[in-house]
């Protein structure tokens, strides 16, 4: 006689340390195996799209800091670039270099957090994360030096950046760029062939190439599935064409690949930083022009390669000082589209590792 069984529904979150903010996964189990997963969003929805409509273009910049708050500079960058494209503003060369430097520092910082928390989710409780914090702290000191802030920098402006780098910044960054590769080697020594990490992440939560593209995945999630797609190369913006760097990819699209791609991307970011430090010219850091930007009527969809993927801003202008409509395409949000498919058939602990490997920040998911 067959045993009568029933599926169990479990709410992971919204308050749960592994959901990286207020996010809920409504998971259905058959025994221990996941047979259904329904992500529930909106706990951190602040209505940024609507808030933008009652603010001037410049006033929206500090709000972008609060999208992906582990990569505020990248958000500043993406937004300012979108408005500049809409209004036809040219950015001085030194400002372009400063922006690229900030964006690549931000990528390293964001990936450090992503890797650290991913290992946390795998059960290596806080020890690896604190190693990552050690290096991130140095980056935060650098960001503090230029903007006076550690998390929400509000540093970039439409047409450039708010002010020039302080004199002590570039030497300090040079020191960081020289020292950092040894630290990444150290992480690799500790982690890359660590048996427990391999057991927890190899072959787990595979996102096949076709599905990754079809589900609009971007960033390290897409590249780990074997798609060589990086907007810095494929749709270059700012001064990225001047730098020599590679797009790391992996083959299988499992949690381990998503981790590996991020480690390799940090090395590529250091390469870019090194070149940017050698090339950065003197000059103004902000375009001349009125502080109240009034882009002509029209619309733009502008995107950059943020640490977590394609960060897009769709802006419609009616010629006034505020956007008529602004939409943020947050990579964390859209990378969650395939979460269910990645988790089906795995166990609860794997679902947590899978979510950790996607690397989400709720500020950007719920906006």
């Amino acid at each position, binding site marked *: 006689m067959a045993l009568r069984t029933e599926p169990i529904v479990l709410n992971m979150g919204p308050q749960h340390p592994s959901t990286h903010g207020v996010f809920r996964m409504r998971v259905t189990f058959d025994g221990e195996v996941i047979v259904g997963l329904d992500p529930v969003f909106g706990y951190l929805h602040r209505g940024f799209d609507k808030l933008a409509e009652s603010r001037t273009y410049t006033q929206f910049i500090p709000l972008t800091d609060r999208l992906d708050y582990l990569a505020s500079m990248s958000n500043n960058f993406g937004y300012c670039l979108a408005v500049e494209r809409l209004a036809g503003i040219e950015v001085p060369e030194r400002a372009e270099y400063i922006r690229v430097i900030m964006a690549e520092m931000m990528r390293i910082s964001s990936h450090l957090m992503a890797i650290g928390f991913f290992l946390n989710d795998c059960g290596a409780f806080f020890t690896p994360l604190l190693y990552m914090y050690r290096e991130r702290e140095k980056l935060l000191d650098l960001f503090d030096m230029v903007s006076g802030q550690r998390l929400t920098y509000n540093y970039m402006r439409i047409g450039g950046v708010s002010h020039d780098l302080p004199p002590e910044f570039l030497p300090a960054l040079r020191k960081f760029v020289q020292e950092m590769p040894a630290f990444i080697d150290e992480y690799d020594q500790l982690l890359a062939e660590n048996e427990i990490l391999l057991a927890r992440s190899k072959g787990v939560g595979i996102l096949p190439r076709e599905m990754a593209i079809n589900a609009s995945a971007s960033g390290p999630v897409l590249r780990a599935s074997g798609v060589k797609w990086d907007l810095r190369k494929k749709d270059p913006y700012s001064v990225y064409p001047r730098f020599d760097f590679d797009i790391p990819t992996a083959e299988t699209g499992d949690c381990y690949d998503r981790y590996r791609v991020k480690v390799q991307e940090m090395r590529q970011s250091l390469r870019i930083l090194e070149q940017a430090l050698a090339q950065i010219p003197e000059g103004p850091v902000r375009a001349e022009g009125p502080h109240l930007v009034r882009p002509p009527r029209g619309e733009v969809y502008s*995107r950059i390669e943020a640490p977590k993927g394609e960060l897009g801003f769709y802006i419609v202008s009616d010629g006034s000082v505020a956007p008529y409509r602004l939409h943020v395409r947050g990579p964390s949000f859209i990378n969650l589209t395939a979460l269910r498919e990645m988790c089906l058939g795995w166990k609860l602990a794997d679902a947590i590792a899978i979510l950790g490997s996607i690397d989400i920040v709720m500020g950007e998911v719920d906006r």
Partner: protein
Amino acid sequence: MTRPLAGAEVAEGVQGALPGAGVKGEGGTIWVEARDLLPVARYLKEEPGLAMDCLANLTAVDYLDHFEVVYHLLSIQHNHSLVLKVRLEGREGLGVPSVTPLWKGADLQEREVYDLLGIAFSGHPNLKRILTWEGFPGHALRKDFV
């Protein structure tokens, strides 16, 4: 560099393959009638020369007398892009067919547009509010929502 396709050329191709389809090219945009959205989108995805394999972004705009649903399509294979737009007249009972059968990436984005702008996507497997809660009064991104 991602190459933006010319809307007029693509529209011509669509009309060749799907006679009678309500499409119009304009700049980098192709305008499609809501009733023809699904076949046109399928053509854009499956025609080898276009191969729009990825729906990069989906949103909608409230222009008071009408709405526009905006699809930013991308071909990772060819590295070119196209904007597809659907114009919806009026303010009540708005709907377009869901493109989730073609691009899974539309899933959460269509739910967001439904939630915040009140446009229903017929054929969507799970059309529920996403950022606000069930029972939320109105649609927050509409211009008449204060």
